[in-house]
């Protein structure tokens, strides 16, 4: 069984190839460059180096979000197009779950996070139980302060994982004191090999119907829905583009 894993949901770009029980290779970069220009060349390069052709693949696993809307879409578009056109299934894994996998030998709870700006984070709560990663609190977008407070109500040590974790370590420390641990840089990047291993166990999905998990509605849609419910105020008009081709 040959599995290709793709993660472009946040700044780190990750591609991995697994053959049977062996990770044949993975490519990880953590640079602020365009995933759209780099993801397909990375896939092509990894498969070539591993001597595997696209038609040998059996499964495509993709990090389905949350993260950058555009980033998530690039990975999901590539994954579902490959899967559909090669006639193989697709499996999606939460981008946060992939990150949480880095805390494999941590004895407490694992908090993967991505910065969502304005003091908000994408996060969830995970723990390894008997070598299996379990999701304790589902992925969400939440004010970092509120999340730290909520976590301080439980007694376990907390591992913060992610490139953006150092941004919030201070805030978490204020709520949790010495119980907070921050994964070092070598464990801060989501590992596409973990993505593939997690995806192997997930439900196989139909490529056509596969969509990202953005967590959030598009801003215009959220405002439109609020207005439908009569909650919108006059000053709350959404800014929209009417350009056909700007």
């Amino acid at each position, binding site marked *: 069984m040959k599995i290709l894993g793709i993660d472009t949901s946040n700044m780190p770009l990750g591609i991995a190839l697994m053959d049977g029980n062996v990770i044949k290779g993975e490519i990880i970069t953590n640079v602020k460059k365009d995933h*759209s220009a780099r993801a*397909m060349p990375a896939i092509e390069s990894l498969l070539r180096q591993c001597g595997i052709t696209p038609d040998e693949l059996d499964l495509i696993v993709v990090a389905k979000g949350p993260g950058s809307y*555009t980033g998530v879409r690039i990975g999901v*578009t590539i994954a579902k*197009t*490959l899967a559909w056109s090669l006639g193989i299934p697709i499996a999606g894994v939460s981008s946060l779950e992939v990150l949480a996998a880095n805390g494999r030998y941590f004895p407490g709870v694992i908090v993967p996070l991505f910065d969502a700006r304005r003091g908000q984070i994408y996060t969830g709560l995970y723990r390894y139980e008997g070598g299996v990663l379990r999701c304790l609190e589902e992925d969400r977008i939440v004010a970092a302060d509120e999340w730290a407070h909520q976590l301080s109500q439980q007694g376990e040590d907390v591992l913060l994982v992610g490139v953006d974790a150092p941004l919030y370590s201070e805030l978490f420390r204020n709520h949790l004191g010495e119980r907070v641990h921050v994964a070092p840089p070598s464990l801060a990047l989501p590992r596409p090999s973990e993505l593939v291993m997690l995806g192997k166990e997930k439900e196989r999905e139909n490529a056509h119907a596969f969509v990202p998990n953005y967590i959030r509605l598009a801003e215009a849609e959220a405002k439109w829905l609020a207005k439908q419910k009569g909650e919108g105020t006059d000053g709350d008009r959404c800014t929209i*583009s009417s*350009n*056909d*081709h700007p």
Partner: protein
Amino acid sequence: MNEDVYVLGIETSCDETAAAVVKNGKEIVSNVVASQMESHRRFGGVVPEIASRHHVEQITLVIEEAMQRAGVSFSNLDAVAVTAGPGLVGALLVGVNAAKALAFAHGLPLVGVHHIAGHIYANQLVAEMKFPLLALVVSGGHTELIYMEEHGKFTVIGETRDDAAGEAYDKVARALGLPYPGGPHIDRLAHEGEPVIDLPRAWLEEGSYDFSFSGLKSAVLNTLHNAKQRGEEIDPKHMAASFQESVVDVLVTKTVQAAKQYRVRQVLLAGGVAANRGLRSALQDKMKELPGVELVIPPLSLCTDNAAMIAAAGTVLYWQGKRSDLALNANPGLPLV
């Protein structure tokens, strides 16, 4: 060596997810367009993030349908052509990455296509292109006069300095309280009304083929506003007719002037606004001044965004040996030349 060439086209630059198969650059084998207009109507315009989300939902379904209707499999295809720009970047990205994934998975050549080149090549699906030619491209985002000496060679001889014609239509339509998208409503109303309101025409400097519609748009808004202040009512029919006449007058006059100066053999009308009946009939009339010059106006389904036009333009690039690699990116400001 005279084998037929089949190209799969993919277009996602705005709010249509489209795929098509075209044979030899001129014969449509299939042409599938999934429009998102219903979804965007509630916002009064295209919301980029929502457009991108719809593209991801639709992309493989639309490509599959285009291939099924054409009765081709990947092994029958010679290349994949995709709109690389201009357009909404998030929307373009979906088509570009799907095209790259297909090209990689099936070892197919990849050709990135300029959206406007696509609109121009929609004409190739209707009539053989005869050079030199002049194309008037009018859409929600474009108002351009493009001169072509040969295949794949574009010279922009005139473009809008502010609003695109289609943009002006949308804004005026909104001011008249017409539903989105406003263009077709103005066209319809204009045929019921009379051009009795005096509105400006921006001819710009002598000899310029550029366009400007922001002054006209402001004049319409001011006229409506002033009338309201005085408690008078302006019949939307007459305003639509007057506005349309001003736009069409400038577009048609400049196009025919340029066609004369550049001694072209063919004039092409391209882009979504080419569906406008007022523009079509005025151009047909004015072209009588140029006997011997052929006027080509594609049917409505090929004027609005579609992937057959991208496949048609892509086929020409394919024949010219142009190839994109897997690093092809969406470029919202992609220049034509």
